[in-house]
């Protein structure tokens, strides 16, 4: 039996797929008509320009001085090339706060997504592979949790944390990031299909403990689901704005999103911050872009190549 590890919890498992030679499903006759190819490619190229324009703009304008930023055409270079000077300013402004923000983002997203994935996969596996009282209740509760907007809980969470003195600390952003109800769903659907009961039984007969069973036998089978959950949680935390905005007061604890917003907010009064914001945006987009392009392979893997032996 096979399934897809789609990010959608209730998505129907795909029946079976017959890969075409080039990996695309519809390599049909239309593909051989050169006129159609040109038209379709042209349409796709125009759309690509739309998706690339903001990134292009920031690359071009990160090379300019503040004067040239306003004085020259934004679609082309002009007014001298001072990219490295600008980026140097970004990295050293405010006593090197930008690298600190980048590091914070990595800590929140990296640590948060790793732990969240582990917890979600363990719980999802337990839900899929054990029968116990309260299973339905847990499912229902977590489903409710998926549907409640994160912003609705952030406010009371702030008061909860502030009553125990946790606000304005790494924990205040990290702890809520450790929960991935969606990850639980995905891994329980996946575990259902990918971890055969017989294998677990065999392990039990060999005297492997229940917890070790999960770590040694189930986890390796769940790798595609783990990768998908990890990526989603990583991007989710990386993109989060509301939670750190509510929780953090100290600039040194900010993730990159909040930090850059902080700089942008100052452009109103101090125009020199425009250049810092543009440079900072470039520095935060480029690594992400590379990461996305590299990881897209895995992403697709997680999304589509979910078929496992069973």
């Amino acid at each position, binding site marked *: 039996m096979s399934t897809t590890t789609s990010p*959608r919890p209730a998505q129907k498992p*795909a029946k079976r797929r017959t890969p075409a030679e080039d990996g695309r499903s519809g390599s049909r006759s239309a593909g051989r008509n050169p006129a159609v190819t040109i038209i379709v490619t042209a349409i796709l190229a125009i759309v690509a320009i739309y998706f690339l324009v903001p990134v292009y703009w920031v690359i071009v304008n990160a090379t300019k001085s503040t004067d040239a930023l306003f004085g020259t055409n934004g679609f082309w270079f002009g007014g001298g090339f001072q990219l490295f000077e600008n980026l140097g300013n970004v990295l050293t402004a405010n006593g090197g706060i930008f690298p600190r923000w980048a590091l914070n983002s990595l800590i929140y997203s990296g640590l948060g997504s790793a732990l969240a994935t582990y917890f979600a996969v363990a719980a999802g596996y337990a839900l899929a592979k054990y029968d116990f009282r309260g299973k339905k209740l847990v499912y229902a509760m977590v489903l409710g949790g998926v549907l409640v*907007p994160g912003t609705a809980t952030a406010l009371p969470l702030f008061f909860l944390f502030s009553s125990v003195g946790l606000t304005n600390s790494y924990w205040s952003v990290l702890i809520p990031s450790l929960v991935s109800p969606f990850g639980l769903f995905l891994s329980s659907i996946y575990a259902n299909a990918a971890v055969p009961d017989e294998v677990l039984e065999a392990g039990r007969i060999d005297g492997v403990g229940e917890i070790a069973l999960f770590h040694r036998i189930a986890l390796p089978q769940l790798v595609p689901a783990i990768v998908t959950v990890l990526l989603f949680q990583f991007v989710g935390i990386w993109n989060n*704005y509301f939670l750190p905005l509510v929780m953090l007061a100290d600039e040194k604890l900010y993730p990159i999103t909040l930090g850059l917003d902080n700089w942008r907010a100052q452009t109103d009064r101090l125009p020199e911050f425009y250049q810092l914001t543009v440079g900072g945006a470039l520095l*935060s987009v480029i690594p992400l872009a590379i990461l*996305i392009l590299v990881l897209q392979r895995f992403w697709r893997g997680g999304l589509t190549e979910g078929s496992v032996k069973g």
Partner: protein
Amino acid sequence: MRSKTAPWILMAPFLVLFLGTVVVPIIMAVGYSFTTVERSGLLGEDGVKSVFAGFENYAAALSNANFIASIGRMILFGVVQVTVMIVAATVLALLLESASAKWPGFFRSTYFLPYGIPGVIATILWSFLYIPGLSPIVDTLGIIGIDVDFLAPGVVLWSIANIVTWTYTGYNMLIIIAQLKAIPGELYEAARIDGAGTFRVVKDIQLPLIRPALMLTIIFSIIGTLQLFAEPRLLQTMSAGITSEYTPNMSAYAYAFQYNEIGMAAAQAVIIAVSAFVLSAVALGISQWMEKRR
């Protein structure tokens, strides 16, 4: 099966965190939403007390013109933006999968790229293209005599929609592509033997089979729309059209952290959560009903 404790041990870290960061805060929010404060003195310096308010906060929230307007704005936004985005994602997915284009890998990566850019940074990037004086688009259009103001009160909602569409179209496209790839090749074969053209293949095979994915994409986009916060909040300082109560979430945030009305903020947050819940349930219901009818 074997052990009664093992599943609970495996679930323990998740459940503890889930209770602490989701369940308890929700209960707290509901609790707050039934309280209000009373003050004596010009600024409450002679005493403040928290009192039970019944449904007062809910009544006030639901009769608050700004809050209602913010919900209406999100519905309008959702209907237009989600539709445009899903249609665009579907068309792009079909085009990429049609094998009629060159360099599909490049295009797929390009479209997906914005998903990795946080909403905050995407908004900053686009704001550069919106601000008159900075934006080459505004400049260029100005030269040919078209005066656009992307940040004008009536326009800015669609400028936000553009940012959201830019960010998530590629992502939704990827999900649809995954579904398309899962369509068995025999179906195409059969269609070709029947002499079906490209459009019939799209209409009779591809669209029906990706419908479940589309439905869920739509539900999640609706929830996302209700939660809209970062994009309008960032553009607020640049656009006269965006008030501090522009979206339901901004309103709840403003009441909690700017207006000192925790009870009202909580009531609004509960209303947002319930609406998301109801909308999702309705959408799911419709989709199941449609599946059954087929």
